[in-house]
C-alpha cells in the first residue's frame, strides 16, 4: 500500500514531476532513449503511461506548454508503437515529421503573405494600364 498517504507538499512535487515527465514524452529522442533501455517493455511503466492519460483532461491540460506530448502519450498506449521506438530511424523520422508539422503554420502564413503581395503587385500593374486609354 505504498504511496497512499502523501502530504500536500509531496503531492505538489509529484504534480510538478509528472508535469515535466509527461512533456518530456514530446521529445522523440527521449522516447528512443527510453525504448533502448527497455523501459517501454516494463509493465509498471506501461501502467504508469496509462495513468498519465489524466493530462488529457482540460483542467490538467491547461498546464502543458508542449501539447505534442499528449499525442505521443496516446501513441505510447499502443504496444506496436513502443516496440518501433527502439529503432533510431523511427525516432529520427518522427522528429523530422514533428518539426515539419511544427513549421506548418509559419509556412502557411508566409504563403498567404506571398499571395497577398502578388495580388497587390498585380493591382498596381493594372492601374497604370487603365490610365492610358483615359489620356487618349
Amino acid at each position, binding site marked *: 500500500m505504498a504511496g497512499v498517504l502523501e502530504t500536500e507538499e509531496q503531492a505538489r512535487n509529484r504534480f510538478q514531476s509528472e*508535469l515535466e515527465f509527461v512533456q518530456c514524452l514530446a521529445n522523440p529522442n527521449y522516447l528512443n532513449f527510453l525504448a533502448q533501455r527497455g523501459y517501454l517493455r516494463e509493465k509498471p511503466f506501461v501502467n504508469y503511461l496509462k495513468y498519465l492519460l489524466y493530462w488529457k483532461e482540460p483542467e490538467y491540460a491547461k498546464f*502543458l506548454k508542449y501539447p505534442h506530448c499528449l499525442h505521443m502519450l496516446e501513441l505510447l498506449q499502443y504496444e506496436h508503437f513502443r516496440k518501433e521506438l527502439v529503432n533510431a530511424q523511427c525516432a529520427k523520422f518522427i522528429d523530422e515529421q514533428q518539426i515539419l508539422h511544427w513549421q506548418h503554420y509559419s509556412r502557411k502564413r508566409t504563403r498567404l503573405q506571398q499571395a497577398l503581395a502578388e495580388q497587390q503587385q498585380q493591382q498596381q500593374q493594372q492601374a497604370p494600364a487603365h490610365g492610358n486609354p483615359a489620356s487618349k
Partner: protein
Amino acid sequence: MAAGERSTKEKLLSALSDMEVLSRELIEMLALSRTQKLPQPGEDTQVLELLVQRDKEFQELMQTAVEQGRIHQEMQQLEKEAEKRDSDIQLLQKQLKEAEHILATAVYQAKEKLKSIEKARKGSISSEEIIKYAHRISASNAVCAPLNWVPGDPRRPYPTDLEMRSGMLGHMSNLPTNGVNGHLPGDALAAGRLPDVLTPQYPWQSDVSMGMLPPHHGNDFGLEPPGHNKENEDDVEAMSTDSSSSSSDSD
C-alpha cells in the same frame, strides 16, 4: 332459430300446398255432389273448416314473414352501421400509429439533442481561458515554429535535453553532463541562441496556480510483489543511472 324448427318459408309453402290439396278436394266434392250424394255427411264442412283454418294459418305466417323481413332489414342497416364504425376505428388506429411514430422520432431526436447539449456544456471552457492558453503555447513557439527558424536552430516543439535537465526531475539526481539525446549543451551555447535556460523557473514546469494536485493513485503500478514501489524508480531512473526515489530526497 332452433335447428329443429322449420323456416317460415317452408311453413308457408306447406300451408299453401295444404290449402291447394284441400281446395282441390272441396272442388272435387262439389263436383261430385252434383251427381251423387256425399258418402259422409259432414265432410264438406270439415274440408271447408280445414280450409279456413289453413287460410288463417297462412295469414298468420304471412304476418310473421313480413315482421321477419322488417327485422332482417333492420339487421342489415345495423350491420352497415357497424361496418362504418369499424372503418372509422381503423382509420383512427392508423392515424394514432402515425402520430406515435412521429412522436417517437421527435422524442429520440430531442434526446440526442439534449445529449449533445450536455456534452457541450460539460466541455465548456471560458473563451478567455482558451485564448490565454492559445497565447501561451504559441508565444513560446511550442506549437508554431518561429518565423525565422532555420535548420540548425536548437529550438524544438518539445523540451530539449537542456530544458529537461534544468527541470525538477533533472535536479532530482546528479546527471552526467554529456549530451544524451543529440543535443549537446555546447551546441546551444555555440549557436548563441540560448533558450531561457538560465532562468530558474521554466514555464513548462510549473504554473502560478500551484493549488493543482495530481490524481490520487493508491496502488503500485507494477504487478511486482508488494513493497516494491517501482513507480518512483521509473520516474527518476529514466533520467539517470542512479536510482533514488523522490521520497528519500532530503532538501
